[in-house]
């Protein structure tokens, strides 16, 4: 069924989330909050070198330390074959994942796991790590993307040959892949252009910086049954990858989804669980592992840093006739940067006749990148939306007008092929135009920037069950970890279909043995795909409830209608019966056919794309180079906001992460290829006093593929901020900041250089 034009009672309201009380009272159980009888502490020894051959590992001294129960190295893991898989960010290889979890033969980045111990206390485990003697042959390393592409660069993988070029290369390279997209004839387009702008931009890798470090608790029982409590964006993902990396059968692994303390894409990969299983198997004891903050930075995935070249050509009236982009993305130590979406998202907002995009996926001696909100899109858009601003300036045109003139609408053919359908970009731009922020005069000394963003959003596999309890209350269970309020949105959709209040539905996240397969919480898919499954399950329950009422009244089921949580006879012909509510129907469930439940699994397709536009005002301290965000407005097409507060929260949080990416966040390496700022002191995420209120404006252009019209909302808001801020700085100072982060030293240097 489709409820897009229905009058809704629950969807669109702002009830208190089902898991809220647990989370404000400290009761919510995150992975590190779990314990097991006889539990050991597991810790990982990590490479201090950016690139080194592992000559030998002597664990004997560590094993001899009293209290140490197990030590593992790559020798304790199967040497698995190359096999392509698809994980959060995109395609990757299980062999690479295995090598990332535990180095074999070579350490490829500082922080790469080399060995692990399990001991009775954390202090003993720490002492044991120091007793593991690893002999390295240090190799030349390479950190920056263009250095890694150079012909004489140190090669990370002897078996990596560039894909996507002909003829197939015969020499190994750090360039894993070349991707190209072409539409029309870009050179011909530029030849017709009246105005051309060109720029080179760079972005730094940034970490998802969830506040909860990765953690898990694992028990390997003597019969081979494994129980895992883990914080992740997908407990089925944990099960699958753990099984794969250890050569185990999935039915022997049960993963309980602990509450997850933020992920933003970074918890769509595994790091600890296979190691903890190996330690537990070897020691015969439960093993708890928890990364330190430093390990999170050094050993888990940030997103790519990149260089971005953009060239735009336009007619005098602002019509863009040609666009070109070259993207070079760091993948970290293994292939798999988000170069594909990087190449697709930059120009997806615009209707462009001639486009030429080339992208490179490049390995270097950094941690393997992991997904981070709209992977690839923020990077590519920083370049494109900065260039759009330059083009507007050169044309003497308002930046909104330039975007309106070239905006993609339904029917626009994208440069990567497909034609846009059911998109709301023009509605977003109209909302910018009419917003008080956009119309307000600029304060003295302030600058204003505008930038837009696009993300595909995804659907995929989800399972949901809806149970009618014996008293008529409702439980909805899904396989989607709740990372930011999805229990609320799922429960609300179920409540809407059943015609009950949100409080009547308790939503839970079920473990891998208790519900059907569900893909990770990522790509902004849960409210869309899992919501679709839950809605359909609720509809099946309504059908069943109607049958039960029909059985009670002894009338045909077609003569029963369901309204406001009750069964009614449909019209006077059906008979004169008092309506039956959920409690009455549940009370008689045994007599009318047994328990009333439904489970629905879907592979949801047709996730509607999301578009956003951000307006940002800044002031710049010209002596220190400090940029202050004075006002921020984020406008986005969300399809339909199921729980508007949590939709706004996604947008505000994404924007704040973008502000951090824009102004201060970066990985700082020393000459040895070691990270210098692996902590929250010097990896500077925004604090409360760094940001103003962030006004989230919800534009609702329904997505016809979803029963309530929802689109994914969590990814788009991190796409525009970097360019919006750069454009605001340009407006305030006249200076184009092409390199992220736009930190005070860089801004001051730019001011000085301009004289």
């Amino acid at each position, binding site marked *: 069924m489709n409820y897009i034009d229905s009058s809704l009672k629950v969807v669109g309201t702002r009830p208190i989330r089902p898991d809220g009380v647990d989370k404000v009272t400290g009761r919510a159980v995150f992975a590190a909050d779990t314990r097991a009888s006889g539990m050991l502490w597991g810790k990982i020894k990590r490479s201090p070198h950016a690139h080194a051959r592992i000559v030998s590992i002597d664990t004997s001294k560590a094993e001899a330390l009293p209290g140490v129960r197990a030590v593992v190295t790559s020798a304790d893991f199967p040497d698995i074959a190359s096999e*392509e898989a698809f994980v959060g960010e995109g395609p990757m290889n299980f062999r690479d994942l295995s090598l990332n979890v535990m180095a074999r033969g070579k350490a490829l980045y500082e922080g790469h796991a080399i060995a692990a111990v399990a001991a009775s206390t954390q202090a003993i485990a720490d002492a044991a790590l120091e007793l593991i003697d690893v002999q390295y042959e240090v190799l030349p390393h390479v950190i920056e993307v263009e250095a890694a592409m150079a012909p004489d660069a140190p090669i990370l993988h002897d078996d990596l040959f560039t894909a996507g070029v002909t003829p197939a290369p015969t020499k190994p390279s750090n360039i894993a892949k070349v991707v190209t997209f072409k539409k029309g004839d870009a050179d011909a387009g530029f030849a017709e252009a009246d105005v051309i702008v060109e720029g080179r931009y760079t972005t730094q890798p940034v970490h998802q910086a969830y506040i909860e470090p990765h953690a898990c608790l694992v028990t390997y029982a003597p019969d081979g049954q494994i129980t895992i409590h883990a914080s992740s964006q997908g407990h089925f993902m944990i099960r699958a990858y753990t099984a794969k990396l250890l050569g185990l059968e999935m039915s022997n692994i049960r993963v309980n989804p602990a509450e997850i303390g933020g992920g933003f894409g970074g918890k769509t990969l595994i790091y600890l669980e296979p190691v903890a299983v190996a330690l537990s198997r070897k020691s015969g004891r439960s093993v708890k592992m928890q990364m330190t903050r430093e390990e999170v930075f050094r050993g888990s995935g940030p997103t790519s840093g990149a260089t971005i070249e953009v060239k735009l050509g336009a007619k005098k009236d602002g019509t863009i006739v040609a666009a070109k982009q070259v993207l070079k993305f760091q993948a970290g130590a293994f292939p798999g940067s988000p170069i*594909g979406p990087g190449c697709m998202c930059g120009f997806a907002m615009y209707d462009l006749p001639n486009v030429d995009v080339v992208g490179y996926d490049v390995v270097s001696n950094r941690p393997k990148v992991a997904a981070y909100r709209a*992977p690839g899109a923020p990077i590519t858009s920083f370049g494109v939306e900065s260039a759009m601003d330059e083009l507007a300036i050169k044309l003497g045109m308002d930046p909104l007008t330039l975007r309106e003139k070239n905006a993609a609408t339904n029917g626009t053919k994208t440069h990567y*092929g*497909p*034609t846009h359908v059911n998109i709301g970009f023009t509605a977003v731009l109209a909302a910018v135009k009419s917003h008080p922020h956009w119309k307000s005069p600029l304060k003295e000394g302030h600058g204003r920037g505008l930038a837009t963003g696009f993300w595909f959003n995804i659907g995929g596999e989800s399972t949901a069950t809806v149970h009618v309890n014996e008293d008529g209350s409702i439980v909805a269970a899904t396989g989607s970890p709740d990372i930011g309020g999805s229990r609320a949105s799922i429960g609300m959709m179920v409540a809407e279909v059943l015609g009950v209040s949100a409080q009547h539905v308790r939503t839970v996240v079920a473990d891998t043995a208790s519900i059907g397969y569900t893909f990770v919480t990522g790509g902004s898919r849960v409210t869309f795909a899992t919501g679709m499954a839950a809605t359909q399950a609720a509809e099946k329950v309504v059908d069943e409830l109607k049958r039960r009422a029909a059985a009670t009244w002894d009338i045909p089921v077609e003569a029963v209608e369901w309204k406001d949580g009750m069964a009614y006879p449909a019209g006077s012909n059906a008979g004169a019966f008092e309506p039956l509510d959920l409690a009455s129907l549940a009370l008689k469930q045994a007599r009318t056919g047994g328990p009333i439940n439904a489970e629905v699994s879907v592979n949801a397709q047709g*996730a509607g794309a999301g578009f956003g536009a951000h307006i940002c005002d800044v002031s710049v301290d010209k002596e220190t180079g400090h940029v202050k965000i004075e006002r921020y407005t984020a406008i986005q097409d969300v399809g339909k906001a199921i729980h508007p507060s949590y939709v706004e929260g996604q947008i505000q949080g994404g924007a704040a992460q973008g502000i951090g990416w824009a102004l201060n966040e970066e990985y700082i390496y020393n000459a040895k290829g070691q990270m210098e700022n692996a902590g929250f002191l010097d990896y500077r995420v925004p604090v409360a006093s760094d940001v103003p209120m962030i006004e989230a404006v919800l534009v609702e252009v329904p997505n016809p593929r979803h029963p309530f019209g929802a689109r994914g909302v969590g990814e788009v808001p991190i796409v525009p901020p970097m360019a919006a801020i750069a454009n605001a700085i340009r407006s305030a100072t006249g200076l184009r900041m092409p390199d992220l982060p736009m930190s005070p030293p860089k801004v001051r240097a730019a001011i000085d250089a301009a004289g």
Partner: protein
Amino acid sequence: MPKVVLSSGSAGQSFTGGQTEFEVEATTFRRLILELEKRFPGLGRQVEESMAIAIDGEIFQDAYAAELKPGSEIYLIPKIGGG
């Protein structure tokens, strides 16, 4: 016969010798994969593992049953993940 366009110049084109447009006798995504594999050994697998299909602007990932109609706009693009 539906016309299919291989939109990305990535690994896919190495199987086709650079060809990007095909007429394929197929009414579903699954049949398309099988036909492509037959015509260009390795390409079907490549599409299956790392590509999605966009039919008239809507993106389908992992959907064998997605219906292909003559006259539809059909693109094979990189599969999309997310954060």
